[in-house]
């Protein structure tokens, strides 16, 4: 049975055509009509709108091969963006093979390299494929060389396809059959199954996405979660069609879902192993790390009465995105809200938009922060994900910040600008390689805080869009950092505090204050804005008072009109947050991000 199965995923740099290839494969199999459908697997509204994949999507495809045999393919389309690397890693665990796609007009990019190594490390069979050959700028030979030079994957004749037109896709499917090994695993051995993802269904609770490594699961079975010992009765198993398709049994080697009426989302951990309660000693599947949120920000309802609504919205969102963490926090300026952790800035951006849209929440997001390790003079070590919680300078012994190891690939002509940029972002060069004549592959260590905000945009603009980057979290590193407080009308606004390197702090403070001055509308009185480090004011600007609002002639006794006008005026103020007696627009808390040094 399992001999006729192939589990594989499609990995690539962002936008190299993974989801488009998945479309063609679905069409060939007859699962969807041949109507030039686009990114069928990108089901989320936001995915479609932004043209990117956010969540990995598994799908099962029936396929009749050239040899006349019927096969079942389990395909997992993965996201390309670095924030969602974690999605790639866990998809890899469910597969034996990976299609490594390269855009022929761009060649091997940073994430091609990173994802290729992830797949190699996971022991997957790699099928290198060159995509977009229909484009005039396609450089097929170059790509072949790059596979060899950069990735060490020898390709005699790499498959060339056009995912858009479908050219070469049938050949690719044949290759998958011959090159990707069928899943191993004994159906009669004790149950061992990996939860590689989960989703939430309002009626059925948590639905686990699993890869069965040995044994089998069927409805009525009792299962146990290795991490917490909880047991459940399986209500339904099935595979991923365009919808969830129930089936009788999931046997070793298969990819599918398990529904066991699990209501408590926290009980299901992606990466956990499902075993049989009769054999609780069965070993867990190792090497699977939980995703770690690395960027945190405060989220506050604009209307403080909506606090509970926001909590419910976050809880719901978390059901389908277990990588989000949140806990209650309160701010003197913004009231009650949450500190929410994300995998990166795109993830944060998307989550905020989903909250705003799907849950109709008005939100204020504060400046994002990484998690600092602060050792106090009393010898305590604090993990601080909110700058306003920083101890005073006198109480701080030293501070460490999270670093990333970044791989940056650039055409050699941009080596200079890339090094400049890296330097300005406190990058430490670890290695510089020349995999081929025209490219340079840098390895840098960066403070995470430096690259989360605008690094990627800056990299793209300094290299005319040619450079690409991938990174992974590395160890913490000591740094000379200070907390900067922003004072509006004399009062420190906790939600605007941020941490930065001591050296550039005053300049950054000034830039920030200037930005705030633009954003905060004139009030009825003069509003001083200040930036302070440990009590020393390092920058100050004033917002002059507005001088009047309309003192038009009162309309005889038309008081109702006057009242309506005032009420209308109030509506416009809804998007403002009162900080003390100053009205601060929501964007102010967030758009400080865009302040240049």
């Amino acid at each position, binding site marked *: 049975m399992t001999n006729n199965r192939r589990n594989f995923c499609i990995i690539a740099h962002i936008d190299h055509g993974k989801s488009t290839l998945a479309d063609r494969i679905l069409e060939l199999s007859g699962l969807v009509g041949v109507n030039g459908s686009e990114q069928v697997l990108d089901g989320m509204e936001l995915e479609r709108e932004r043209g990117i994949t956010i969540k990995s999507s598994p799908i099962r495809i029936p396929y009749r091969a050239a040899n006349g045999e019927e096969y079942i393919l389990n395909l997992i389309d993965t996201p390309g963006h670095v924030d969602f690397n974690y999605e790639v890693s866990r998809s890899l665990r469910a597969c034996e093979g990976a299609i490594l796609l390269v855009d022929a007009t761009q060649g091997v990019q940073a994430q091609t390299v990173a994802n290729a190594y992830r797949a190699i490390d996971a022991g997957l069979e790699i099928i290198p494929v060159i995509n977009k050959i229909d484009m005039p700028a396609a450089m097929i030979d170059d790509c072949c060389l790059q596979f060899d030079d950069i990735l060490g994957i020898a390709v005699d004749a790499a498959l060339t396809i056009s995912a858009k037109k479908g050219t070469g896709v049938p050949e690719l499917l044949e290759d998958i059959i011959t090159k990707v090994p069928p899943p191993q695993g004994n159906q009669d051995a004790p149950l061992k199954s990996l939860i590689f993802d989960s989703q939430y269904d309002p009626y059925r609770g948590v639905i686990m996405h699993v890869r069965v490594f040995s044994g089998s699961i069927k409805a009525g079975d009792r299962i146990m979660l290795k991490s917490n010992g909880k047991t459940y009765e399986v209500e339904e198993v099935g595979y991923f069609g365009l919808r969830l398709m129930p089936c009788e049994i999931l046997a070793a080697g298969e990819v599918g879902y398990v529904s066991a009426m699990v209501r408590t989302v926290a009980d299901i951990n992606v990466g956990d192993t499902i075993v049989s309660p009769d054999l609780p000693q069965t070993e867990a599947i190792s090497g699977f790390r939980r995703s770690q949120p690395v960027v945190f920000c405060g989220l506050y309802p604009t209307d403080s009465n909506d606090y509970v609504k926001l909590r419910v919205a976050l809880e719901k969102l978390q059901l389908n995105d277990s990588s989000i963490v949140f806990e209650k926090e309160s701010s003197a300026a913004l009231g009650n809200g949450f500190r929410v952790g994300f995998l990166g800035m795109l993830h944060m951006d998307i989550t905020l938009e989903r909250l705003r849209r799907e849950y109709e929440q008005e939100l204020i997001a504060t400046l994002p922060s990484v998690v600092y390790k602060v050792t106090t003079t009393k010898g305590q070590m604090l993990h601080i994900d909110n700058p306003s919680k920083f101890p005073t300078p006198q109480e701080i012994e030293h501070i460490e910040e999270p670093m990333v190891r970044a791989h940056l690939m650039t055409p050699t002509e941009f080596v200079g600008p890339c090094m400049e940029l890296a330097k300005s972002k406190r990058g430490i060069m670890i290695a510089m390689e020349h995999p081929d004549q025209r490219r340079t592959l840098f390895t840098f260590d960066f403070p995470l805080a430096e690259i989360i905000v605008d690094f990627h945009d800056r990299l793209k603009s300094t290299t005319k869009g040619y450079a690409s980057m991938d990174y992974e979290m590395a160890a913490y590193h000591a740094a000379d950092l200070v907390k900067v407080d922003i004072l509006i009308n004399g009062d420190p606004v906790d939600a605007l505090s941020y941490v930065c390197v001591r050296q550039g702090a005053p300049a950054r403070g000034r830039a920030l204050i200037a930005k705030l001055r633009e954003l905060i509308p004139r009030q009825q009185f003069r509003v001083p804005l200040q930036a302070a480090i440990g009590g020393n004011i390092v920058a100050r600007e004033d917002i002059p008072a507005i001088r009047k609002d309309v003192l038009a002639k009162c309309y005889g006794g038309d008081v109702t*009109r006057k009242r309506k006008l005032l009420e209308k005026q109030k509506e416009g103020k809804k998007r403002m947050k009162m900080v003390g007696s100053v009205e601060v627009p929501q964007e102010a808390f967030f758009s400080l991000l865009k302040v240049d040094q």
Partner: protein
Amino acid sequence: MTTGLYVHLPFCASKCSYCDFYSVPGRLDLVDAYVRALLKEVRQYAGLPFTTLYLGGGTPSLIGPDGLRKLMKGLRRTANVSALQEATLEVNPESASAEFFQAALDNGFGRVSIGVQTMVDTELRSVGRAHTALQGAEAVMRASALGFSSISVDLIAGLPGQNQQSLRRSLDGLLSLHIDHLSLYCLSLEPGTPLADQPPANLPSENKQADMFQMARDMLAAAGFEHYEISNFARSGHQCVHNLNYWRGGDYAGLGASASSHLQGRRYKNLSDLQAYMRRPAAAIESSEELGAGTKAAEEAMLRLRLIQEGLDVGDLAARFGHDRIQCLSDRLSSLARENALIFDGTSYRLHPSRVLTSNPILAAVLEEA
């Protein structure tokens, strides 16, 4: 108890470019029929003793001495206007004839409000006013010569091309004449008016307007005028009783197209349509709303805070509406006082002097429903 009677006369010589009051240019042929309609409408108030009368517009002086006599004769016959404390008549300089003034005096008007607006001709022309500065000055002199007991003028700050110097000249000119009361409005661009559709380049900025307003306020204070309401200044004893009643949340009946009324907790407004009004004068209602006690109290608070000296006596408000009903309101007031938007002296709330020019957000906050 004060109960006001307002009569709207929606006729104008021509339409000023900033104006969004309900008025129609020309159509003096309709005056007779309109006056008859007014007298029909007022019948429903027979027996209600009015304490103030205000003829506004539009341009009431356009109905001429005969029109005025007819109107007043009818009012006296139908409505209870025998014990008026104050009767005001609005007049525009182009129709402020001695004959009209005399007819007004003969019919019991002691107070006259003259739409001078500015004493600079280019400024008058810039907004299409139908008179000159000289006509404005003459109207004021004529009124004082004829012996009105209270003379008010309207002035605008922020006209196209106006600046502090020119406003100072206008004020100097007017203060050298005999006036007792002055209303100073900032020009505002009302949607749908020609001025708003095509604002001239020489329109003073809001900040310039504010500077002008402040300069005028200082000049008026020096000349002995009390700034008693956001836009109104008066010599002692010359505050407008009819308007004070609006700002104290009092009752009044409004007659005529587009006129508003507030009687027994109900606010309503007549249609802004001359023909529709004349067809059914007592039933041409555009909107009507019954105010709940909470809304009513908040609205009264909002209005009373416009009276910058008198302010809002919370004890009195509580006595009339009940402590419970105004609890949220008084919380809002005290929080506004903490923010220095209002001043509280233990009895009354007043606008903070620095916030008089920017009172709208404060008044909006006062209105806010809990």
